[in-house]
């Protein structure tokens, strides 16, 4: 009796045992994945509130980059049934005005988690956020917004889809810009509702810091517009422009053309995204000449008006032909720079010791990264003296056999014109916390004094000459005296210098007496007018002109400059009063010379022939070019005869034959000849 009942109870025990084990097996082994998923989905894992990335602002507070809070909606297709799909599709089609089947199709065809609405703006999503449908969830999806589109794109850089900086300031200052994500641990009640925040385990969200750039937004805009206009006008692959304050090293604008939209960076090629201003090196060509001359001036190796035989622009040195694009029989040191004579520079370079050249070029910052606060800076290349070949020094004196970045050139030029001090260029003015505390403030940083004040003044004056009467006349400004240097270098392509691809550059500064602005313009491979003076200098001129118009503080008292056009008169005057003067003066209207002739006297197609007697060939050529008069020159030295008499009417088709003689220096003027 007892035994059969015990057996019965044992049976019940076994049934229950088997049932429980079967159930355990079902939920722990067979449906483990489902429950794990459920657990993961619902658990009140600490909520991470993503911190907002900091702003990037221009110097005057314009917001160049900020973060917008979007929301993306996802559906877990594994948790869907027809009813849920229906209600989700209905809901979203109502809010986003898309057909229902659009969403249905997406959910039906999707695998696992499907993003059904990406980066919906908060205004639209705010209502959807409140709706609870099992299997539908959302994620705050921050987006980086660049309110001015491609403006300063190469400076600002961009972020990847995880809002991590990849290029530019976004990369270099990623740590500062990234805030601290908030971490909230919630106490929940039985129903899973949030009751309170566990403060001990939670940490607040701290927004990222703001980066204030030294970029002047209006300069930047002007520079970008003129670069792209210039690129359009002259053709070419790309263009680089930098505007810098020579006295501090602040980058006021930095642009590359073509540019890109940082919000959609993936649509642009790596070429367009590259910040050529500091990643690309090139051979600087003639722009190096001012620097080399400054070194020689500093070392007292040259005098301003000593005369160099420039061999009519053709000089064979060690079996290598060195030629000038503006040929002259002879030039003074000053004129060699103004006319950018390679022959003149070659001859002068013999006086320079290899080590001194190397040391000074290093001192000017070449072959060293400038340490600007932007990523991916190139160092450039400078041969050490022991690796100099016989030609190296000569080639270096006019800008070959060394490679530099645009940023290095403009930094070196800042030192040239600011009295001789090299500054570290910088582009971040300050880092400010979201509560307004200044965390970092960049001050101008002097690296070293490279040349003396007097050398700086002198080379500055030389460069004023370049703009006023040399190869850089296209850079002349109406209201202020500017200086600068053109540069044209053949590009090294497949190991030989290309005659069709040039780097045309211009580095200019103004106002000449106390430069506030140094600007660098480089056009790569222009198709029209390869020379720096014809391509880059006009861009510099337009940029500077617009900057002066836009920024009233830049040149406060605008006075129209009255330029002397009649160089012969001046030359005669010079001769009469003995050439003691070492610097020329450029006068503003109202000071003196009220009777000066207007700059352009060849209006229309009728004008009179100027007197060219006693003038140097370069002046004559410049003047005749300006008149549009065709000419033929024979002989060297000063003009002794002109085929069209001074004062005679000339026509555009007229040809003037000019005879020169180098012995004229001793001769007296004969205007009747």
């Amino acid at each position, binding site marked *: 009796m007892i035994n059969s009942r015990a057996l019965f109870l044992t049976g019940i025990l076994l049934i229950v045992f088997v049932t429980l084990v079967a159930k355990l097996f079902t*939920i722990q082994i067979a449906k*483990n994945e489902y429950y794990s998923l*459920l657990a993961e989905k619902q658990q009140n894992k600490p909520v991470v509130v993503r911190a907002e990335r900091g702003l990037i602002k221009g110097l005057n507070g314009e917001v160049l980059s900020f973060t917008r809070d979007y929301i993306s909606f996802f559906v877990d297709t594994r948790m869907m049934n027809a009813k849920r799909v229906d209600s989700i599709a209905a809901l979203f089609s109502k809010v986003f005005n898309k057909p229902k089947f659009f969403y249905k199709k997406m959910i039906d065809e999707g695998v696992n988690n499907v993003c059904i609405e990406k980066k919906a703006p908060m205004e639209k999503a705010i209502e959807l956020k409140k709706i609870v449908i099992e299997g539908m969830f959302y994620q705050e999806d921050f987006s980086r917004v660049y309110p001015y589109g491609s403006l300063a794109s190469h400076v600002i850089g961009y972020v990847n889809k995880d809002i991590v900086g990849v290029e530019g300031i976004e990369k270099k200052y990623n740590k500062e810009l990234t805030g601290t994500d908030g971490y909230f641990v919630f106490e929940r009640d039985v129903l899973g509702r949030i009751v309170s925040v566990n403060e001990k385990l939670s940490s607040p969200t701290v927004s990222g810091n703001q980066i204030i750039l030294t970029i002047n937004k209006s300069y930047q805009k002007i520079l970008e517009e003129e670069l792209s206009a210039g690129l359009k006008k002259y053709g070419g692959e790309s263009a680089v422009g930098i505007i810098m304050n020579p006295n501090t090293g602040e980058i006021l604008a930095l642009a590359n053309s073509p540019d890109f939209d940082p919000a959609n960076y993936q649509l642009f090629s790596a070429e367009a995204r590259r910040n050529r201003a500091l990643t690309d090196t090139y051979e600087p060509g003639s722009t190096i000449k001012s620097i080399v001359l400054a070194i020689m001036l500093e070392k007292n190796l040259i005098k301003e008006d000593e005369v160099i035989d420039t061999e009519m622009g053709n000089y064979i040195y060690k079996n290598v032909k060195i030629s000038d694009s503006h040929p002259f029989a002879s030039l003074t040191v000053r004129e060699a720079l103004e006319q950018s004579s390679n022959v003149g520079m070659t001859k002068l370079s013999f006086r320079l010791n290899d080590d001194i050249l190397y040391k000074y070029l290093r001192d000017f910052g070449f072959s060293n990264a400038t340490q600007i606060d932007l990523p991916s800076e190139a160092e450039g290349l400078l041969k050490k003296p022991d690796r100099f070949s016989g030609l190296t020094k000569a080639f270096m004196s006019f800008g070959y056999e060394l490679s530099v970045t645009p940023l290095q050139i403009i930094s070196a030029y800042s030192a040239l014109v600011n009295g001789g001090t090299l500054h570290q260029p910088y582009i971040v003015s300050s880092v400010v916390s979201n509560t307004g505390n200044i965390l970092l403030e960049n001050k101008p940083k002097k690296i070293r004094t490279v040349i003396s004040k007097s050398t700086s003044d002198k080379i500055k004056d030389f460069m004023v000459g370049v703009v006023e009467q040399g190869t850089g006349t296209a850079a002349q400004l109406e209201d202020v005296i500017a200086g600068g240097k053109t540069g044209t270098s053949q590009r090294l392509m497949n190991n030989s210098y290309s005659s069709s691809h040039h780097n045309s550059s211009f580095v200019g500064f103004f106002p000449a007496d106390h430069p506030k602005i140094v600007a660098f313009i480089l056009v790569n491979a222009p198709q029209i007018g390869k020379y720096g003076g014809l391509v880059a200098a006009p861009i510099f001129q337009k940029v500077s002109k617009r900057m002066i118009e836009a920024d009233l503080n830049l040149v406060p008292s605008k006075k129209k400059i009255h330029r002397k056009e009649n160089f012969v008169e001046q030359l005669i005057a010079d001769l009469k009063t003995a050439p003691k003067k070492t610097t020329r003066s450029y006068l503003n209207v109202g000071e003196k010379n009220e009777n000066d002739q207007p700059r352009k006297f060849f209006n229309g197609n009728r004008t009179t022939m100027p007197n060219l007697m006693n003038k140097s060939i370069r002046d004559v050529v410049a003047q005749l070019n300006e008149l549009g008069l065709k000419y033929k020159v024979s002989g060297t030295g000063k003009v002794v005869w002109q085929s069209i008499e001074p004062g005679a009417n000339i026509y555009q088709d007229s040809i003037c034959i000019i005879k020169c003689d180098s012995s004229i220096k001793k001769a007296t003027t004969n205007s009747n000849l």
Partner: protein
Amino acid sequence: MQINYKLQDRFDFVLFFSGIALIIFGLAAIYSSTVNHPTASGNFQRQILFAAASVVILFVAYALPAQTFKMFTLPTYGLSLFFLVAVLLVGKTVYGAKSWFGIGGFGFQPSEFAKFATILMLANWLTYKNRDINNFIDLTIALAIGFIPILLILLEPDMGTAIVFSIVVLALVFWSGINLFGIFVVLSPAVVVFASLFGVYPFIAVLLLIIAALLFFRKDLFNSITVFVINLSAGFFFDYLFKILKPHQQKRIESFLDPSADPLGSGYNALQAKVAIGSGGLFGKGFLEGSQTQLRFIPQQWTDFIYCVIGEEFGFIGSIVVVILFMIIFLRLLDIATKAKDKFSSLVIVGFLAMLFSHFAINVGMNLGITPVVGLPLPFLSYGGSSLLVNMLMLGVVLNIYKNRKLHT
């Protein structure tokens, strides 16, 4: 009378260590579920004290003379009834049921003590000479001894404990040799009550079935009508009882019958427990690594939902080990019950077995989502002093019976 028994013969090590192993599992699970809890973090230390005390009580019960328990059945039963009445008057309401005495920092649950007392009382009464469980009057008295505490407990109201009591009473009646008709008489009201939960038509259908069964047994008209009236009134009585249940208990019963009716209400715990166990997988997430547990998804997990801590952190393996330990205990109890030297001892063990088993089945069942959530602790594992002490006391009594099974009085 042999004196020189081997120790194994006087002490059931398997039974004892299975219990101890379950207590250790329970302590681990309690530690895991309370270590990071703001208010329950002292529970682990308290449970260690209870465990130590309960082992002492087990050995005290083991050491007592064999007849002690039988001698004290009536006073114990009387005392437990007194406590059950007193708790209704001066008790503390916890989770909607007035089932606790607050004594100092500790609580005491008289219904736990009443389980022990009722088992002893019923076993004692059923072993008197000339008792015939198939006699209608004797059966009625036996059921009455069981149903007095059940009624008092239902008034608290503590549904789970009342169910356990019912199973214990049924088991004792069954073990004392009731025949098929007797079983029918005892069980049919339960079927009627259950059917009435589903509405009028199932209720009527079950009543018709009972009439058919009565015709099958071919008892005299008086007995048949009496049984039918008992069934009918049980249905109406339960309907009345259901209405006086606290809302949270009505909800529990409803949500068991239709789990989707209130997913965030009383179904919440059941669902979360299932998620915890289900996400544990084969080997579990590791001790103190269960996210459902550590993130405190299941409120008061260290009491009724302690099993899902094991399921989550120790996985399928851990869960099975616990179930097997229980099965070992149950089979040992059944074995000892059949070998006990007298009917009283046998009945006491079966009563204890029924009590342990019903707790186990319902508790694990509700953790796995196969039984309703009715607030029952898992013996040996759940946090709670009263339950642990009573269970170990009962285990001590069983060991005592085991020790004396070959002795002749």
